[in-house]
């Protein structure tokens, strides 16, 4: 019998070297792993960044849709690449997701997919919300509830909104095969229970994983600097920083509001190269603000933690909540958030 002579490990040998062959690894995945191996610890971020700017693709913006994204509080999530997601199937996804939600809400009772529920789910792409042509298109998911009184003039109310985007996500896109769609940043507005339902559906359907994206104090100070650096014709809000003092039983928050023009003047005095921002500049900017505060109130803010930054461009909280106020710098804000999200996934 021939089969008896076959060595024990034969099946494995026929399998092409995948992960086991470290030395001969040449696929994108191997290269990706290699780069991760070289990256040592959790906390490495670039020391310099570009000043956020208007994207060349921003012309494709549909102003109405963009306005829809502004002035809302979004909860931030990161999302690992989605497997077998296709932009051509958005219609189908919306009906699948609709029945999924209906089924979940009815607690396991079988539902029929074409049935008319008192809500609908809409998937739509957000053209223009991308940094480069390589970035996959952003898309929006909405749950709209219909009042049941009359079907024609039914008042439609958006109950929940969530959108997926990737702005300047090159570092992630490089290593990912075509079967995956990389939209590392997910922003949700609406009831947490809905986010949970929709997130679960996405996780089950596209084998991806949602994680809350929190923003560290370090990154918040970057945001403060970057957003102060933006040129705006008119400011809609004061620049406000919130520091939290850990003390029991309730933590104490110190709010520090500055006139936006003063903040800009301070930044201009700190800032040197016209196109980029460096880590030293950010540190210096925050240090200046802190020492100013110390001079007046004798409170050393350096010992506390920065938890919230709000400017006329956007406001962000360390919990991972963001509100974008200015459409001009939307792309810039999203680019930084995408960077943070990618950093968290890798």
């Amino acid at each position, binding site marked *: 019998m021939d089969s008896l002579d076959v060595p024990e490990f034969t099946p494995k040998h026929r399998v092409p070297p995948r992960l086991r062959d470290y030395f001969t690894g040449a696929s994108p995945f191997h290269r990706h792993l290699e780069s991760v191996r070289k990256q040592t610890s959790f906390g490495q971020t670039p020391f310099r960044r570009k000043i956020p700017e208007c994207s060349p693709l921003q012309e494709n913006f549909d102003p109405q849709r963009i306005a829809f994204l502004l002035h809302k509080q979004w909860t931030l999530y990161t999302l690992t690449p989605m497997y077998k997601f296709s932009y051509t199937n958005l219609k189908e996804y919306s009906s699948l997701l609709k029945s999924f939600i209906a089924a979940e809400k009815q607690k396991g009772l079988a539902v029929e997919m074409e049935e008319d529920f008192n809500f609908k789910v809409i998937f739509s792409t957000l053209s223009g919300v991308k940094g480069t042509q390589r970035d996959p298109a952003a898309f929006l998911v909405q749950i709209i509830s219909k009042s049941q009184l009359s079907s024609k003039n039914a008042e439609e109310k958006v109950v929940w909104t969530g959108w997926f985007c990737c702005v300047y996500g090159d570092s992630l896109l490089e290593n990912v095969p075509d079967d995956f769609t990389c939209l590392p940043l997910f922003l949700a507005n609406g009831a947490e229970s809905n986010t949970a339902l929709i997130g679960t559906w996405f996780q089950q359907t596209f*084998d991806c994983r949602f994680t809350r994206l929190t923003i560290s104090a370090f990154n918040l100070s970057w945001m403060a600097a970057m957003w102060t650096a933006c040129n705006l014709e008119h400011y809609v809000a004061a620049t406000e920083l919130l520091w939290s003092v850990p003390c029991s039983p309730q933590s104490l928050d110190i709010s520090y509001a500055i006139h936006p023009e003063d903040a800009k003047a301070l930044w201009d005095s700190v800032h040197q190269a016209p196109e980029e921002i460096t880590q030293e500049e950010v540190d210096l900017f925050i240090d200046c603000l802190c020492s100013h505060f110390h001079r007046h109130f004798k409170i050393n803010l350096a010992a506390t933690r920065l938890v919230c930054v709000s400017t006329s461009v956007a406001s962000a909280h360390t919990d991972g909540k963001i509100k974008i106020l200015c459409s001009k710098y939307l792309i810039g804000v999203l680019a930084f958030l995408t960077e943070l999200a990618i950093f968290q996934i890798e």
Partner: protein
Amino acid sequence: MANLPYNSAEGSSDVVPESPSPERSTPTTEQQMSPTCFQTSMVMSSQETSLSPVIPIIQCDRSAWKMRQNESGLGPANLQYGLGDGKEEFNEHAALQQAFNYIRKATKKESTLEKHLQTVEDIAWKSGLGPKDIDTLLEVVLSSPLRAEAVKSRMLKCLIPTTLIPESAVVKAFSKLCTHNYSNSIKIIFFRWLIAMFDFIDHTEEMNSLYGFFFSFLQEESMSCYVCHLLYLLTKRENVKPFRVRRLLDFQSKVGIQPHLQALLSLYKSFCPDLVSISLPQKRKYYFKNTDSIWQTAVYIVKQRNQLPSLPSVELSVGISASQPQKRKWNSSCIIPKPTSSFTGEKKQKGGSTSLDVMFGVRKTFPVEQLHMFSQLLENIQNIQFPSQMCSVLKNSSLLHYLNCVRDETVWLRLYYWMNQVLKEGCTWCKVSNYTTEEEFKSFLDIVGKAQCFLQEGFPSSEVFLYRSLPLWDGTSCRSEYLQLLSWLPLGNFSEIRPLLCDSLAPLFFTSSIFHKCSVLYSLKQLLQNWLLRYAMRANVKTMMSTSSHTTLNVVNSVSELISFVGWLSTNALRLEEHSSFLFHFVLDFFETVSDMYLNYNLPLVVIFPCGVFYPALLTFDSITLNHLCYIMYRYRVNLTAAKENDVIRQERQKFNKTYQKFNEYVTALVDCLWTSTAFEKDHFLYIDPEIMKKTKIKDYKKSLNLTNHPALLVYSIYFLLQGWPGEKELALGTIQEHLEDLVTYRESLSHLDFAQDILHDSDKHL
């Protein structure tokens, strides 16, 4: 009469009928022994059990039943009680048969009948009835000449299956029910039983062919709701006929709109929308009355009690997700979902596929939900699709097997992304989130470790996680699970790994307890072994093609760097822990693997252990350590002798000369200390100026290190003398020299000491 506890308050705790789709929802209980998927989940609630007015109280132990048996003085079986489970089961069976036989013939109520009835009840409610017993009992009940209905209903309630209910039994019983003149209450109990046990019936094809008969029972108003429920479970598309719809509608117009009728109608409508033209209310909430949960509880208890020890492969596939409460954060980490088939793949195949097609559509692919055994994997390997969430393979051994023979890189990538996130979020010492407890993370790491061991390969995500989290690790939390990741690092360039791994591992190693040190050394030994195995496997394949000396060189470099790192670690650790023999065990274990590299794994490399390990082990007080050392030296010698023939080593003679020199140096020291007592002589390794030695006032110091006087062996020598010459008051160790042969055989537990003797004879051959 209506004896079973019944929740008549409609709508309060209703059970929702599930869709009759061929793919039923996956069972929620873990220990389901039958191969079919059960529709109803069995959840035991204490409330339900306490509701029962009739059901005999089930004692957890068998003693109650035994006692009753003893009282009734039944059969010779009594003599063997308590001889073990196997016997008892046999007795149960015998007692059952006896009871059945009696009840079959009984014509009127009397005390013996009562006893037999109790026997049946006890056994049924305690350990359930097998398929055959169910068949017999049904037959007995429905054909017995007894007139008493109470007895019959009691017997019907005992029909609790251990595994399955044979369809033939149901069909037989149903035909009897149709032909004989039974009261409605018996029929109702039978239908209720059928509804409650529907999922345990092994097939439903024949039952389905009796659909018309079941349907005819609808006419009876008193039982129409049960019949509706049963039909709801039984209905297939082909059962929906215009005349049935008409009958249903007629009936509805007679009795008014009833929820159960509406439910059946809506099911008919979903199968054949063209036949049911009436509009059903939008808000579809049709419920059937609560199924008899007491029966389900009984089944659950029986299953729990009869639970067999699970097979190892089954153990792997038991999901934690099921055992954890559903109400958790939706994306909380460390929960591994059960495998479910993905819909993304085939959704596009049918153009205008309706929703029902997706749900009921017959697919060629073998659903992963049904994959439980290796044999199923082998039969369906062409048709298996990976689950929608790749992470679910981690706990399913069959899918891991499948994963092992898949070429697709995306599969690994999906797993990589997911695991990367979960490890990062779950890691309790990195504090990215606070959702997971240490226990959860520990068990997650354990699952990952087991899967790695199964695949004989580390996951890239766990490698990355290890590098990132090691600097923050406290050295104690999840120690053994975490260090398991270490042993599956891929075979790579050690100089690349070194800064990532060793720079944070070493400080932690030196400052932690001896147990930590031992676990780290153990994991490093596993790592070395895994690397060597990987190399050996590849070398095996390569010989068929072409040997790549470049790869070999890479591996040789990596391995020797790893060994020298461990050598450095152990030298220092031994000093810190004052040469503890516990630590020695782990250190020498590592070097035992090292010593055999050439012969066992075909790696052209022999690395001798450092002096910091050899000399302390040689001068130890612990005989086991010394024995272990001698064994390692012996293996070194065998390997070195064999390596002389190897081409690669011959080419690099220069490099290996040092190895041989070092080995010879060690051998000399070994022989000096154990055999020739020359360790203190000039040009030997322990040479100390005799003047200084005199000052120590040790008498005859030259002989203090030999086979009889070595500190580790002294105990044996004394023991030897005490046993050999028990009468002597004064013993001179010197006299042992004359009985050396005896002494050596006496210490047979330290078998490897003989090596010193061997070497003495041919030590000159080595250079």
